[in-house]
């Protein structure tokens, strides 16, 4: 840590570390937000184009309550509860409709809520604030917190625990590819029997590459991912160690921990009998009904739980921004979440997180690199960046329609 202290006094490095922390918080918040969508759409098949409404309610409820001196944890839980109630309300009124109507109603609701917080006076302490002015100067978590050495080490240990879990999961993913290799191999065997003898030599040479390529590929991807994870981890450790120098360090730890816990619970749920019913509804709700499952209630639960998760992400978002304006909650935010879920592979929680990582990596990479290689002014450049996202999505859909971590077999199955 001696070297670290010398290093971290350099203002340029401080700037970079602060930026990485900021990026980590953003990624974690939007990963959380997208996980709500992944539960609703990826698992249950509900098309929600108004996810941002839950985030809006979560953010405003948390912020307003905390302005009255209610503890942040309680305020956040209340925000999640209000968001869940919105899910309940939307569900009650629309789930009996066909799913495309749900899409229309949800996008309408999200705009409705944004317009309400834009045009209504918000009940802030002392005097009401017009919604369009936004909310500022509300309590933020861990701002007055000045940790002693022990607290710092506990915080670092918690972060290490999460990163360790990531590495463990990655390792398992790499090792699992052995099964994939076997499938590839057996497929080849059946192919070979039809190939003429003269060409088998070429074929078998090829097959050596294809036979081991999934494993090699996974090892390479795994190592790169581990190195990439190490960057925010190192930044996090430095940030937590020099807690008072980095305003986002505390929020980074909170959002990463919340994300980790939510992912863990969602994974448990997705593999549980409860998750099985949701998947059954996604596949064919008539079957679920014929087998005695209360489809309506399960859809409501998915809407409410997904909404509550998005609500929590709203609270974190408000803390990160330190001010909230109605225009932060445009429908575009919902579609960013859709991009993240589709990028990573629908129905896959880790894929969704990966989608968020790719999204923000792209976002910040192009922010710095594009101005240097594309001669356009700022306004056109920002439009260009979004355009390229569309292009990349199209390429992905052609090359890997199941998403980065999706399973190809699932697309080829008959209904």
């Amino acid at each position, binding site marked *: 840590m001696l070297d670290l202290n010398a290093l971290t006094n350099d203002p340029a490095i401080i700037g970079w570390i602060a930026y990485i922390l900021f990026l980590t918080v953003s990624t974690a918040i939007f990963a959380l937000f997208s996980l709500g969508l992944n539960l609703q759409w990826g698992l249950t098949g509900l098309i929600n184009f108004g996810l941002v409404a839950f985030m809006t309610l979560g953010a405003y409820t948390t912020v307003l309550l905390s302005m009255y001196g209610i503890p942040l944890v309680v305020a956040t839980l209340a925000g999640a509860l209000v968001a869940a109630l919105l899910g309940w309300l939307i569900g009650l009124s629309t789930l009996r409709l066909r799913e495309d109507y749900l899409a229309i109603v949800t996008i309408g609701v999200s705009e409705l809520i944004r317009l309400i917080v834009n045009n209504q006076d918000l009940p802030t302490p002392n005097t009401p604030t017009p919604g369009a002015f936004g909310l500022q100067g509300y309590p933020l978590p861990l701002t007055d917190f000045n940790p002693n050495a022990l607290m710092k080490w506990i915080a670092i240990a918690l972060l290490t625990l999460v990163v360790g879990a990531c590495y463990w999961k990655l390792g398992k993913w790499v090792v699992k590819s052995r099964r994939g290799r076997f499938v590839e191999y057996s497929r080849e065997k059946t192919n070979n029997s039809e190939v003429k003898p003269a060409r088998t030599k070429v074929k078998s040479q090829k097959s050596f590459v294809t036979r081991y390529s999934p494993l090699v590929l996974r090892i390479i991807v795994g190592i790169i991912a581990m190195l990439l994870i190490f960057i925010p981890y190192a930044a996090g450790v430095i940030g937590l160690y020099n807690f008072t120098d980095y305003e986002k360090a505390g929020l980074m730890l909170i959002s990463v921990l919340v994300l980790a816990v939510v992912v863990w619970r969602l994974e448990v749920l997705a593999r549980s009998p409860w998750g*099985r019913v949701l998947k059954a509804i996604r596949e064919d709700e008539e079957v679920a009904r*014929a087998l*005695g499952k209360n489809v309506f209630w399960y859809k409501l639960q998915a809407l409410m739980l997904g909404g509550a998760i998005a609500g929590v992400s709203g609270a974190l978002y408000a803390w990160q921004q330190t001010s909230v304006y109605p225009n932060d909650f445009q429908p575009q935010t919902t579609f960013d979440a859709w991009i993240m879920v589709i990028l990573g592979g629908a129905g896959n929680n880790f894929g969704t997180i990966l989608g968020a990582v790719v999204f923000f990596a792209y976002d910040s990479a192009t922010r710095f690199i594009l101005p240097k290689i594309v001669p356009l002014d700022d306004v056109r450049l920002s439009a260009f960046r979004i355009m390229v996202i569309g292009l990349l999505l199209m390429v992905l859909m052609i090359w890997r329609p199941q998403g980065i971590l999706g399973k190809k077999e699932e697309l080829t199955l008959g209904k």
Partner: protein
Amino acid sequence: MEPKDLNSQPIPLLSASGLTKTFGGIKAVDNADLEVAQGSITGLIGPNGAGKTTLFNLLSNFIRPDRGWVIFDGAPVQHLLPYQIALQGMVRTFQVARTLSRLTVLENMMLGAQKQDGENFWRLQFQPWAIAKEQQILREQAMTLLESVGLVHMAHEYAGALSGGQRKLLEMARALMTQPKLILLDEPAAGVNPKLIEHICDRVMTWNREGMTFLIIEHNMDVIMSLCDRVWVMAEGRNLVHGTPEEVQHHPQVLEAYLGK
């Protein structure tokens, strides 16, 4: 049906009376009656468009009847929602087998089990061990059933990878997994090769001997004749006749309905 009819026989497991459903100007089912005795295999036949599948939908309340009542296991059920009827023990299959493609065959089976603690969100949070145990028991039950229909080697494959005949078998086994009192089979032998039809019939008979009651829609007369205790015939939404397979087979009205005058 006359009241004295009911008195002379034990109370049927399922009885429907006066069921009517109109789609626009078409009477899909018109004043239809049906009875299924406890422990029987009852057949429901009729030419295409006779309203058999609609009658199935009315019985299980997937479509609400305009008129008529259904009594199942001694209690009226037509006010219940489809899933509640399934919970009462009347489980249906579909004419075109519906499997949940992106779930494995085993998951399809385990979904069938009723009243699982693991399907409750809060129990899942607070009693993970009890649920793991419950699931283990269900897994064994499911594997036993899969073995009996000959799908055990496919247990961990996606259900979407099954052939048409295998899907029919899976659907039947899944219905059985709910431990029902009555299974409604909609054309279990449609589009299935003769060898597999034999297998399906064999399974139905075995389960029937173990006490399961079936109501079967089927076009394949061999299947109906070999399986059924009683056969109900429908044509143009109405009851035509009912009786033993032999009686029905040679009934002039039935021949007329199938072959024309």
